[in-house]
């Protein structure tokens, strides 16, 4: 078990380093950060000034190593755009993204549970197909489009919900649905197949033979076993949601990490982009690692492999 964990951990570290290196290089290719920072009406002299000020004139490798060394010590530097510490800017905005991610995950699970159970109880009937159709619709619709449709319906027509911003819990309703709905089919299919498998197992038959009531069998005995893989999927999906909230945050003008990433790329605010990429990839790697370990704990066969 320890060897397995260590192996996964080493792999996770390698992934994090590669991601940070690739993102560092890709951003440099997209244009000279000094020109972007200097703004439109800037002279060559001004651009050179900024280039020296932020050390963009040093070789790329030196810049990368310098950055990674300080990042290892927890110092992500200062954003040349905001001229504030990157950690402070991210701290200001992480709350919105985490709230959105958490709510969306909860929404996805809450929607897919009844759908998955219904589909499993009535496999290959119209109920099953309808449940699947509802779930798949979420994945088929582009989330920005779905978000805009909701704005038109709930905000412009019905005036029930505010269009954008983060002032109250109402502001999070549409973004949560837009982001969470997208993840629904994955959960729903997993719950459905898990439930079908569990429902046909011997102990369920025994429970029924003992005369237990159907809801009790379903929720107390079957669901508990079927939901284990869902937990590990949830960990991975949460990572996706943090990264995938870029579009949703910009549609609903939620100033979270995703929106910050998007804007920072446009203005070549490299320290911010690098820190976000590193943070998101680390969260993703850690969550995946946790789900791997969790699975290994739950299922000894994985460890042996």
């Amino acid at each position: 078990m320890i060897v397995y964990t260590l192996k996964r951990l080493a792999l996770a570290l390698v992934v994090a380093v590669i991601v940070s290196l690739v993102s560092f290089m890709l951003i440099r290719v997209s244009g000279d950060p000094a020109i972007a920072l200097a703004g439109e009406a800037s002279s060559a002299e001004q651009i050179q000034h900024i280039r020296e000020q932020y050390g963009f004139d040093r070789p790329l490798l030196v810049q990368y190593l310098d950055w990674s060394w300080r990042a290892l010590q927890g110092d992500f530097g200062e954003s040349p755009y905001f001229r504030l510490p990157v950690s402070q800017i991210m701290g200001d905005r992480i709350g919105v993204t985490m709230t959105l991610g958490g709510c969306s995950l909860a929404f996805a699970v809450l929607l897919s549970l009844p759908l998955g159970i219904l589909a499993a109880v009535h496999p290959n009937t119209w109920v099953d197909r309808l449940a699947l159709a509802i779930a798949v619709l979420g994945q088929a619709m582009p989330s920005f489009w779905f978000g805009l449709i909701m704005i038109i319906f709930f905000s412009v027509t019905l005036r029930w919900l505010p269009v954008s911003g983060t002032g109250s819990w109402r502001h999070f309703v549409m973004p949560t649905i837009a982001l969470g709905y997208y993840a629904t089919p994955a959960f729903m299919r997993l719950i459905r197949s898990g439930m079908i498998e569990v429902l046909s197992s011997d102990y369920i038959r025994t429970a029924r033979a003992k005369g237990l009531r159907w809801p009790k069998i379903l929720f107390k005995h079957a669901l508990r076993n079927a939901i284990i893989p869902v937990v590990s999927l949830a960990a991975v999906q949460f990572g996706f949601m943090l990264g995938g909230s870029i579009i949703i945050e910009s549609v609903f003008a939620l100033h979270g990490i995703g929106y910050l990433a998007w804007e920072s790329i446009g203005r070549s605010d490299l320290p911010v982009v690098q820190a976000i990429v590193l943070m998101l990839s680390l969260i993703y790697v850690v969550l995946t690692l946790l789900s791997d370990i969790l699975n290994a704990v739950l299922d000894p066969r994985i460890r042996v492999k």
Partner: protein
Amino acid sequence: MRISKHLVLISALALLVSFTAYPAAAGKKDDTLNIALEKELETLDWYFNTAREGIVLSQHAYDFLIYRDPVTFEHKPLLATSWKWLSNTVLELELRQDVVFHNGAKFSADDVVYILNYASNPDSKVKYWTYVNWIKEVKKIDDYKVQIITHKPFPPAIEFLSCAMPIYPKDYYSQVGSKGFGVKPIGTGPYKVVQVEPGKKIVLEAFDKYFAGSPKGKPAIKRIVWRTISEVNTKAAELMTGGLDWCWLIPPDQAAKLAQVPNLTVVAGETMRVGFLYMDAANVSKDAFKDNPFTKIKVRQAMNYAIDAATMSKTLAGGQSKPVDSVCFPTQFGCTGDVTKYSYDPVKAKQLLTEAGYPNGFEVDFYVYRDRPYAEAIVGSLANVGIKAKLVQLQYSAMREKFQGGKVQLAFWTWGSNSINDISAIIDYWFMHTNDDIARDPKVLELLTAASSEMDVEKRKALYKEALQIIASQAYTVPLFTWVTNYCFSSELGFTPNSDETPRFFLAKWK
């Protein structure tokens, strides 16, 4: 189990009640103007941001020494009551004595001397360096009189002082520094900043001690809530639901739809931004390409004849957009349309191409960083005369880097001059043999250099005119038209856009 059932029921009820009770947001009723701007403002310290949003904010929270009338562009007293040139390099200004900062501190010569000397010192590393580097030193003569000494004669000094260089309180700024100031600024402007969430939200409140007699006047609207929303559809929805009272930069198709919404007003207001194509006449790109057709004047003239700027201005830009014959905005000092004109004539364009040795046209990469629909129209016009322009769209910084690196033969640029009403704010960047100059005409350089320190108004005008005439007769560029921005706002709001692209909410009022 029972508790959770109750919880579900209560939450469902709460949800229902709160949905139906959702109030329409703000506006005239609570005297709060909700506006949305495009970009996240990095800092509220004008000297350290380069965004348009920073210019807008500086008009509200701060005052410059001189006021520029947004309609007539006339210079009027603001923090300075009068000014005169003592010599070609010494400008003396008398200051107002009845002005206080938002924190109660009294405004005096010390504040002016401090901030201008600080900003014009290269060690301060201000981002707006080109707007302050003409100042050599600022001297205090008495408590309400200062002298600005320039490095060399600097004719647009008054213009620069009227749209740049806000005055901050010396004691406060030296105590908190630019970083502290950037999130908690203090000025003398008609609005004080009461709340800042960096990049997200700024709340401004009318300053009740704003000095009487300011040409800006006392603001009529009490509060301004300024948010950052970049997504156009979101802005449109906010406008329709009353969540926003004002926004700008709405694309023409959306603007047309919003114009049909009752209670909303849409104005396509002219801006100082002009567009132009720039061709590599000086063969700066010789290392990157084998052939460069743009070194031939006939090809450059053909480009001018091939593009129908007047129709593009009318049908694509619309509103108050006007075609231009020179690369400058008509109101800018020194700008003139009295130059060689090229009317739309594709037949003549083809003929010139044949004479230049390109009877079948040629292929070229056409670099663009914004306004793709305009660029596509240009590609179509060029195709009509046989020039196959391949559109390459890049981010602004990537394109400027390639351009300066001599890897571009044909580019589509636009320039907003930072709303400075003087031709030097545009022409110096593109024709004074800078890295951005791909015409590199020695005579133009000579004329512009002479104009840059010519204090005689008429002589300076004549120098710019001659330079513009050479640029046009050599057809270094294809001047296109002036840009418009679509302002969209609540019909309850009395608001007039100005061509310097700086909305002034202290002049706005509820109807």
